[in-house]
């Protein structure tokens, strides 16, 4: 069974200690065990762009979808036999020690082929032809529904979006996540693994699914996101990936990234929006 692991930073997180960052060993272990399917780090939340469509208008906001104190800093898709194995894998990730890991199962559609995978085989080794973004599909109760802005039923069909983007070669893979009620949080504190029920039932917004897209630039990413039906019913957060070498010395990485966090690599949202010509 596949699980998405989201690495949450912020809120009650402990300070990051590079010396304790053994992510390289973690990746080696889960790959050797055949548990790991694909994972990425995400560029910091100030590089996030949130896309909503309201009344037919594309609204682009700089930053993540929510004011919540926590943000997702990275993700992995793993294949585990059950939740206990997923908990064991998550608890060994360094982020469990200073942040927390959210374990989310995927929705399996009734007509899903048995044995089909969220992450296509060999994807981790495929090199990117363009810029890759994690497109977080955010459910936002109260978002407007189709018909209001005169859209057609086809516009409300996520399958149609998937078909179009697959056809364009933009969408790499993705899946709908089980609701927060089925989520589990894992933290490691003082050597002890803390497992808790993870449903933020009271939260207004939550990640309902994700797609990994590969596009020319942020402008195309916004155009792709704006076409997703959930941009009307909720919001889409675009997060550029942050390729990194897991075996790099974490102290060196921390120093380099500290500087990097203050400059953006992507064009500002306004520029991208102008380019999207929507």
């Amino acid at each position, binding site marked *: 069974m596949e699980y998405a692991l989201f690495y949450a930073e912020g809120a009650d997180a402990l300070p990051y200690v590079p010396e304790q960052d053994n992510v390289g060993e973690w990746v080696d272990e889960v790959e050797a065990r055949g548990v790991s399917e694909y994972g990425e780090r995400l560029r910091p939340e100030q590089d996030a762009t949130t896309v909503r469509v309201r009344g037919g208008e594309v609204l682009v906001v700089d930053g993540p979808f929510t004011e919540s104190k926590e943000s997702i800093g990275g993700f992995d898709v793993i294949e585990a036999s*059950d939740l*206990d194995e997923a908990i064991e894998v998550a608890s060994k990730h360094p982020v469990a020690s200073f942040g927390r890991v959210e374990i989310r199962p995927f929705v399996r559609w009734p007509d899903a082929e048995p044995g089909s995978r969220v992450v296509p085989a060999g994807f981790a080794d495929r090199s990117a032809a363009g810029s890759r973004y994690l497109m977080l599909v955010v459910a936002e109760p109260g978002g407007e529904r189709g018909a209001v802005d005169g859209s057609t039923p086809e516009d409300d069909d996520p399958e149609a979006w998937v078909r179009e983007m697959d056809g364009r070669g933009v969408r790499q893979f993705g899946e709908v996540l089980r609701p927060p009620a089925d989520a589990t949080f894992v933290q490691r504190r003082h050597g002890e693994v803390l497992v808790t029920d993870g449903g933020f039932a009271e939260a207004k917004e939550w990640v309902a699914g994700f797609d990994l897209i590969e596009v020319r630039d942020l402008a195309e990413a916004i155009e792709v996101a704006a076409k997703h039906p959930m941009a009307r019913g909720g919001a889409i957060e675009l997060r550029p990936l942050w390729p990194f070498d897991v075996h790099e010395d974490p102290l060196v990485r921390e120093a380099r990234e500290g500087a990097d966090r203050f400059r953006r690599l992507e064009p500002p949202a306004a520029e991208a929006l102008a380019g999207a010509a929507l």
Partner: protein
Amino acid sequence: MTDAPGSDEAPGAGGPAPLAPGVSAALRDAYRSEWARVVATLIRVTGDWDVAEEAAAGAFERAAQAWPRDGVPRTPGAWLTTAARNLALDRLRRRGVERGKVLEWMAMQELEGHGDGPPDPADVVAEPSPEWDDRLRLVFTCAHPALPMESRVALTLRTVGGLETGEIARAFLVPEPTMGQRISRAKRKIRNAAIPYRVPTPDLLPERLDGVLAVLYLIANEGYLASHGDALQRLDLAAEAIRLTRLVVALLPDADEARALLAMMLLQHARSAARVDAAGDLVPLPEQDRSRWDAAEIAEGLALLDGGTAGAGDAPPGPYRLQAEIQAAHAVARSADETDWAAIAARYDALAMLADSPFVALNRAIARGLAFGARHGLDDLALLEASGRLEGYHLLPAAQADLLRRLGEADAAAARYRDAIALAPTAPERRFLERRLAELGPTHPAD
């Protein structure tokens, strides 16, 4: 909730032929002792909690029809399990084309893999071991840490204890639909997040057993001192906690903390008849008629503590053993005056080292007050009050009032009794505090 649905409300019980008393008792006994075993086996075989429960309920329905006619089978548990297997098989066959068919097909393979077809209930003899393991799996799955604690308690009572959703809802004073949603949400999470149906691996077992014991402890606590409502104790819940803990002790006989928890429950439960008077009011420990304590339960509780394996290693006693030893100190005292408060205070010292709990600190202060003089206790309570950690908890001013009363400081005691009365959550506790306040005499008006 002391009456299982297998008795009065059993489907079929209201049918044309009234049940012979013997059969009715056999059905009730079977429901109490076999529900978890039947459900546990069916969950393993079908992987579907709802199918398992429906099939188990159906099996008891069939028993209510068949046993008066054919007699009570020699091994009711095996009879019921087989009947439930057959019902589950029918149900899965009927749903054969729906979603999840692969999983169900696998379940059917296993169901049909028992010989040349589903066995006939009449042919089945008891096979103790696999069902035993199934029940242990069930206990650990219901208490999985990825489920919220309130759901763990409800699911354990429903699935392991066999209580109806309505009974659990009434016990915890929540509307039945709320409790139903809580239980079905937990089952959904077990399925969707793939919480494994198994006994944890040895490296996980100690911490997961802690979770199981915490659930049982919560059920017992709610039974011993209800958190709300008009009744002081809920003996049905207390009895259920004992029954479930007995099951865990039987399943894991080497788990010393499980034995200690059972001992603690028994030693507390032994006093239940003496803890309330005819009006349902609280009778405090020193005033209880000790001849009304249940001698058999006390003997069993003490034996469980003696028979423990705590002495085998150098491991310090765990929290349940310490609490059981405190109960044991009360149980062996022939009168309140003969209570070994120094021994009790020492156990609270050890408990305070294990967990930084304000409730432990409160009890420790009271024990020290009674062991070494009320002034000691009041000093400890003043520190606890200053910490603000028990703000709004009625037993803090109640404890201060009691120690002040022992020192003869009636005015100060009266003020603290009034604070406690205003905060007390149940009517019997309020009435007890009001009685104590009245006993101080009429010369102490409210401020």
